[in-house]
């Protein structure tokens, strides 16, 4: 069974979290993500969950990591300035393999920038912002429907891979209201069960993911952000151990790149190929609809990190990739790494979505 709603993107995100079984939200209000927190504040207590408004975003992500170790599905939501504050504890979640979901409804930066305007300026920060070598998962919704669905997916990926998963939304999608078809139930992927009595971080499977020994289950697990051995004990000066640990934490995500790739390929034989994620997807779709030209291709990406590079190879006749982004070309640079044909970035700052005319003008420019 499903039902139709006319929801704001941020509300769809919160409802997706609730549908996914999120029982803990800790965060700090910030435009343009605040509606997520407000909706969780209204709904969670009535469902036996907990909402807490923390003193800042550092505390917000700290609280969800703490909650996650009790076995709860936990989430926070923020935007640029708050996201910057979260960087250190994001690394802690990566190092300690703590599943959690962080929503970033992106606004114009740097600094306080444009609080009420849209942007995609944090796409590299999410990938590389926390110190050390890391790998994370980032999803980008382009519809209110995807705000719901990708939030559910974020929880499943977080629990499966034991990593923070980021819903990298933007103000455009977060704040607009549109039609959404809400399912009664959603798929749920559980954390890998823990074999009682074994070392807390021992990995036995080729997927590099250890079982999850939730607090309170008698495993006496020690969780530390220090480099640790498979027992979870600090061991911060052993070069080989550190190399092996960080490599495993990166490999468990990078090796699953193809498995978690989520994208659509439209007109794979085309010569000119748009690549987009988040709000600019909508403009590209409008151009595709208006032009009805099979020589215009479109790669629509939902899993931006790890970047689904194999998808680019599906456009065998591509002469040029065109990338509209609400930043100065952050993902264009990633695409340049993977293709041998020209990459045309269409950067846009200021807070407004690309118009169809702007994309058409690039399509028609002389090569």
């Amino acid at each position: 069974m499903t039902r139709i709603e006319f929801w704001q993107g941020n509300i769809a995100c919160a409802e997706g979290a609730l549908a996914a079984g999120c029982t803990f939200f800790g965060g700090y209000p910030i435009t343009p993500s605040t509606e997520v927190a407000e909706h969780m504040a209204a709904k969670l207590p009535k469902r036996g969950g907990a909402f807490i408004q923390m003193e800042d975003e550092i505390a917000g992500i700290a609280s969800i990591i703490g909650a996650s170790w009790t076995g709860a599905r936990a989430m926070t939501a923020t935007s640029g300035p708050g996201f910057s504050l979260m960087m250190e504890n994001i690394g802690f979640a990566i190092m300690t393999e703590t599943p959690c979901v962080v929503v970033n409804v992106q606004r114009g930066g740097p600094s306080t920038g444009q609080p009420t305007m849209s942007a995609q300026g944090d796409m590299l920060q999410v990938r590389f912002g926390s110190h050390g070598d890391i790998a994370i998962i980032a999803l980008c919704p382009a519809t209110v429907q995807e705000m719901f669905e990708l939030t559910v997916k974020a929880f499943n990926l977080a629990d499966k891979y034991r990593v923070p998963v980021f819903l990298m939304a933007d103000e455009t999608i977060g704040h607009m209201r549109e039609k959404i078809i809400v399912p009664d139930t959603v798929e749920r992927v559980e954390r890998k069960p823990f074999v009682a009595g074994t070392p807390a971080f021992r990995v036995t499977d080729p997927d590099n993911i250890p079982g999850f020994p939730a607090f309170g289950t008698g495993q006496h697990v020690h969780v530390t952000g220090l480099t640790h051995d498979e027992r979870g004990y600090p061991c911060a000066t052993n070069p080989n151990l550190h190399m092996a640990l960080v490599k495993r934490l990166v490999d468990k995500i990078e090796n699953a790149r193809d498995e978690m790739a989520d994208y659509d390929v439209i007109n794979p034989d085309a010569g000119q190929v748009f690549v987009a994620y988040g709000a600019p997807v909508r403009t590209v779709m409008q151009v595709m609809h208006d032009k009805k030209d099979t020589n215009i291709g479109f790669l629509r990406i939902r899993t931006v990190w790890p970047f689904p590079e194999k998808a680019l190879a599906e456009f065998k006749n591509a002469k040029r990739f065109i990338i509209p982004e609400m930043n100065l070309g952050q993902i264009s640079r990633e695409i340049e790494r993977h293709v041998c044909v020209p990459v045309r970035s269409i950067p846009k700052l200021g807070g407004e979505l690309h118009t169809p005319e702007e994309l058409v003008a690039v399509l028609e420019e002389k090569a």
Partner: protein
Amino acid sequence: MSYDDWFRKDRLPHIFCAGCGNGTIINCTLAAIDQMNWKKEETIFVSGIGCSSRAPGYILTDSLHTTHGRAIAFATGVKMAKPDFNVVVFTGDGDMAAIGGNHFIHACRRNIDMTVVCMNNQIYGMTGGQGSPTTPKGCLSSTTPYGCAETPFDLCELATAAGANFVARWTSYHVKELEKSVKAGLETPGFSFIEVLTQCPTAFGRRNKFRQVIDHVEFLKSHSLLKAKRDRLVEKHEHVPEDMFVVGELTRRNRPALGVKP
């Protein structure tokens, strides 16, 4: 059971220096916990960064050794997600009062049900002796080479003003009193804060004329002013010595608390 049963024996020996007071404080805390008859499965230790914050690593329960200053914020998540758990935070003066000061006062304000034991050695011990927000005026550290010019925090007054239900201060000399106060803190619903002044021979004593551990412990003892005595002095309008610090149970009240076990 005794406090000894709470140790994670395969992690010993510990990293604390000879003469360090942290072991005393851990023992007193575990002795108090042991008297509570808490189950290990329901007891979570949380800490930040610093010597004090290594304590949970030596205790055989689930434990979360987090980022610098943030222990109380992580602990808040644990407690709010699972109020059935008993949550104890080990922290230090640098961890809790400098980088983590905001989390500390907000946890006091929320009066969230947890017990925070702050090992206050008045210095950053682990990283070689830099000044902290509780380094006394005039004391030497590697970042106050001409004597600390800033006024230190009174952590207990801070906790009381911010709303904690239980606040006490002792020193590493007062083991019996400390154990009792920790137990009282564990028993009090809401936020309980126990500050323990302690010696750090390696980073503090060496620079501040306490080369011998016993000299520093003797100083802590002789400069402790029992709260009851202080109150009598105040009542009689008599002089309260400036170079002494008040020890004892300083605040106990029953304000509404957050996250109390149902």
